[in-house]
C-alpha cells in the first residue's frame, strides 16, 4: 500500500498534492498494482470534502483516511505527522509520499524520525522499485542524487512540478475512514499560535497571465525593475521573478516563479537576466514561447529558450520599450 499525505486549500487538494498522487500511483503501478491510499489532516469545510473526494477518486485513491481531532485545526507538524503515522501503521504502508512544500517536507521529516527510517526529499523519479531507488534534486537542482531507501516504510517528498497531475485510468469512489489519532501533549507544543496577514498575495494573476515578464539577478537590485515594469505594462502582462530576487528582498515572494513559487503557462515568457536554474525552470517550462534576454549565451535559460537576445537587460529592455511605444503609438 502506498499512502499519500494530501494537502488541501479552499479549492480542494493542492496542485502539488495532485502531482504527488500521480507520482505515487506510478510507483504503485510499477510495483505490481499496489493500492493507493490518501490521508487528510487538518481543517476542511464540508463543501471542500466533496471536491477533494472527487479529486482523490480521479487520482485512483481507493481509501481516504481522515484524521479527526479538534486539536488538529491549527497547523502543528508533530501532531499532523503523528496522525499520518497512525494511518500508515493501520494500513501497513510500504511507501509514504508527500509533496515537497514547506509543510509536506516538515511533516515527512517528523514522520521519518518517528518511524526511525530514511527520508528522501525532493524526489523527481523512481529508478528502481526493488530495492526502492529514487533520484532526487540536490545542489539546489543542479544535480541529482540516486538514493536507495533501505528502510521500510520508504518516506519521500516529491519535488514541486516534477510531474503533471493526471487522472487514473480507472477512477474510483474512495471509501472514507475517519480515525482519531493518538496525540500526546508534547505533539501539540509547536502549533501555530496565530496568523498575521501578509501583504497582498495575488498569485492568481501570475498563473493565469498570457504574458509574463520575468526578472532575475540581472535586475541588479530592488531599484532595477523600472524598465521591466514598464515592459510588463506595455504588454499588459504580469511580472514574475526568480528565487534569488525574492530571497534578496528585491521583490515580494508572491511574484516568484519556480518550484517554490508559482507555475506559469503564458503564451510568452520574457525571461530577463535569469540564469535558469532547475528550480526556476520547473515553474516556467510550460510557457508556449520563451524569449531569454541574458548577457551569458551559455546560461541554461538561453540554451533552453525558443528565442534569445544576448545582452544586458538594462540596455535591451529600454530599447524594446521604445520600439513598443513607437508601434503602439
Amino acid at each position, binding site marked *: 500500500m502506498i499512502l499519500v499525505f494530501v494537502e488541501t486549500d479552499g479549492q480542494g487538494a493542492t496542485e502539488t498534492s495532485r502531482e504527488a498522487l500521480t507520482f505515487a500511483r506510478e510507483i504503485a503501478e510499477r510495483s505490481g498494482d499496489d493500492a493507493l491510499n490518501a490521508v487528510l489532516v487538518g481543517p476542511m469545510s464540508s463543501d471542500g470534502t466533496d471536491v477533494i473526494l472527487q479529486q482523490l477518486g480521479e487520482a485512483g485513491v481507493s481509501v481516504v483516511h481522515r484524521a479527526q481531532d479538534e486539536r488538529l485545526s491549527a497547523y502543528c507538524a508533530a501532531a499532523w505527522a503523528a496522525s499520518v503515522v497512525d494511518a500508515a501503521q493501520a494500513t501497513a504502508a510500504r511507501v509514504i509520499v508527500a509533496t515537497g512544500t514547506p509543510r509536506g517536507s516538515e511533516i515527512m521529516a517528523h514522520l521519518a524520525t518517528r518511524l526511525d527510517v530514511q527520508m528522501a526529499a*525532493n524526489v523527481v523519479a523512481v529508478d528502481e522499485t526493488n530495492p526502492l531507488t529514487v533520484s532526487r534534486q540536490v545542489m539546489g537542482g543542479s544535480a541529482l*542524487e540516486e538514493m536507495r531507501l533501505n528502510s521500510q516504510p520508504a518516506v519521500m517528498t516529491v519535488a514541486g512540478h516534477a510531474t503533471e497531475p493526471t487522472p487514473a485510468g480507472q477512477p474510483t469512489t474512495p471509501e472514507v475512514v475517519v480515525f482519531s489519532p493518538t496525540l500526546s501533549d508534547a505533539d501539540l*507544543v509547536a502549533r501555530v499560535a496565530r496568523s498575521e496577514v501578509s501583504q497582498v498575495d495575488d498569485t492568481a494573476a501570475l498563473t493565469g497571465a498570457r504574458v509574463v515578464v520575468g526578472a532575475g539577478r540581472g535586475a541588479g537590485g530592488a531599484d532595477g525593475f523600472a524598465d521591466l515594469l514598464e515592459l510588463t505594462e506595455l504588454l499588459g502582462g504580469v511580472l514574475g521573478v526568480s528565487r534569488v530576487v525574492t530571497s534578496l528582498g528585491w521583490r515580494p515572494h508572491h511574484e516568484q516563479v519556480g518550484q517554490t513559487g508559482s507555475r506559469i503557462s503564458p503564451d510568452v515568457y520574457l525571461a530577463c537576466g535569469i540564469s535558469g536554474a532547475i528550480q526556476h525552470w520547473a515553474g516556467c517550462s510550460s510557457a508556449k514561447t520563451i524569449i531569454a534576454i541574458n548577457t551569458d549565451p551559455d546560461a541554461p535559460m538561453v540554451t533552453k529558450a525558443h528565442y*534569445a537576445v544576448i545582452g544586458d537587460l538594462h540596455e535591451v529592455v529600454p530599447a524594446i520599450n521604445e520600439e513598443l511605444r513607437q508601434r503602439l503609438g
Partner: protein
Amino acid sequence: MTNVLVCIKRVPETSGQILLSDDAQTIDGRHVGYTVSPHEECAVELAIQVARGTDGEATVLTVGSEESVAQLRDAIAVGCSAAVLVEADIDRFGPADVAEAIAGVVKEHEAAGTPFDLILLGNDAADTGDFQVGVRLAYQLGRPVVTGISTVEVLGDRVVARGDGPDGIEVFELPLPAVVAIQEGGIEPRYPSVPGRMKAKRTPVETVTPEIEPVGSGRVRLKLPPQQPSNVEVLGEGADAAPAVVDLLVKIGVVSR
C-alpha cells in the same frame, strides 16, 4: 540570558557549472569555492541578535572536515563568540548521523553546566537538501521544533518564531529550550568588521570527534540532469535586437501592431 547554538554546513558554491568526482560520489571540489547557505547566514545573524539582546552567547557549530573551520571563523567574525567543530567525514554521514553528532555536543554542554537554550539551523543544506536534520535533532533532545522560520524573538522563557504559511505569516510560540530551522528572507545578515575578523583568527575552536557508527545517506551516486539539445534562435545582440523582439511579439499575437 539566552545561549544560542547555531549549526552551519560548509557547502560548495553551486551557481556555476558542476563537475562530479570520478566515482560520482561527490562533487569535484577542486575548482569551486566553499560557503554556507543563505538560510544559515540568516540563522547566524538571528543567533547573534538573540544572544546580544539577552546578554547570552552565540556558539557556532559544524559537522565536517577540518577545512570547515573557515566557515566557523566567518561566523565568529560576524559576532559568534565560540565555535565547535565536530570532525567527521561528512560524505559518510546521513542526516540522522549529523543530528546524532550535534545532539552529542548539546548533551555534553548540558552536562557541563553550559546548556544551549535555543538551537538554530538552516532549513535545508544547500548541497544535500535533506530538510530533516533540525527535526531529527529535536527528537534526539526531546525538544519542540519548527521549520521554515524567518524571524525569532526570545521573550523570557519562550521563543516567538514567525514564518510564511499558506495563508499568511504563521506565528509559533515555543517554550525554551527549543530547536528552530531558519529560512532565508526575514533578515539581512551583517558583514564582518575588521575587529571581527581579527577576533575570528584568535578564537579557539573546540574540536570533538563523535563516536558514531554512521548509518549513511543512502546515496548510490550523483548524476547531472540530462542536457537537452539547444534549439534557441538568437534574435540579436543588445539594444539592436529590439525590433526583432517586437516583430516576434506581434507574430505571436500578444502585441496588436
